[in-house]
């Protein structure tokens, strides 16, 4: 089992972001959830809010609006209306 996740965020206006991360949390409509490597197949809708991901010991945040998240085989795909990297 891979011990890393691939996080991919795309929007219709061409924003595209791919990163290998250790862990991430996202604002699901039914409550915030975390994804670790080895997560089972999962599909959910997201509220607008921050997606926080961790690489090693650094955490970063990307804010998305009304999105879908899909987890398949340690690949997290997020389809968002818009996304913005927070510095």
């Amino acid at each position, binding site marked *: 089992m891979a011990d890393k996740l691939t996080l991919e965020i*795309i*929007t*219709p*206006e*061409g924003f*595209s972001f791919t990163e290998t991360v250790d862990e991430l949390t996202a604002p*699901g*409509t*039914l409550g915030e*959830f975390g994804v670790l490597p080895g997560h*089972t*197949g*999962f*599909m*959910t*809708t997201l509220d607008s809010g921050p997606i926080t991901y961790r690489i090693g010991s650094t955490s970063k945040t990307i804010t998305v609006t009304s999105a*879908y998240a*899909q987890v*398949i085989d340690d690949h997290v*795909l997020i*389809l968002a*209306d*818009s996304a913005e990297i927070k510095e």
Partner: protein
Amino acid sequence: MPSLRDIRNRITSVTNTGKITRAMQMISAAKLRKAQSAMLAARPYSNKIFELLSHMSSAVDREAYPLLNLRERKVVEMIVLTSDKGLCGAFNTNVLKETARAMRELKDSSIQMSIVAVGKKARDYFHRFGVPVRKTYIDFYKTVKYEDVQEIATEIIDSYTNGTIDELIIIYNEFKSVMLQTPKRARLLPVEPQSTGEPDDGVLDKFIFEPSEAEILNNLLPKYVENQIFRAILESRVSEEAARMIAMEGANKNTKELLEKLTLQYNKARQATITTELMDIVGGAEALSQ
């Protein structure tokens, strides 16, 4: 026979027109590149959402979802995508011709229609023929924002769900290549579930859906329609700039040919005047010497 001055004036005016068409061609070329890259940028998202939808919708009961449900066609809504500006060859004519054909077909089967006109050209067209338009959107082509498209889409999807319309079609110019754009009529609502063509690998069976699969699908369907409209608008914009670029290229060639012809005519006329003057002088000198 036009006088020398007339020809000179025409040469100036043709030269000026040529300057304008050349500038427009260059602007279109730049805009075309920009529009094309926007279209390409939108593709990954479209493909993914299509993939998701076809995975989820292929096996469901269509009756259960309003956006998949086939209803009797009583009112059909048409979105007609044209440009705001002209000088782009047959771009608008093609779309409007296709629209007229669609309207005839609907009339023959006595189905009511309602029209959403996008672009000044569509608005003017329907106005000229006294066709009532339900909604007009103009002036948002410069920068196609996803939110603007969402606004249009949400309004239409709402009127679909509450039963005001029973079907939604969109008519726009499909971008085949820079040289070729063809009018296309596509049905957006009800959504036609697509099968991916691959055998069901059972990936989804082990999936956790949160909230339920049905709720996600209900949420995904409008998003898909929205995205389809967005894509059509982007494609229409690329087609417009391509059509304009080709039209202006033709205009440039024509001005060049016209200028050659006029210059020849001008030189001939000048030569003729000189000859007549010379003959006058020679004739006058001869008369004096006698």
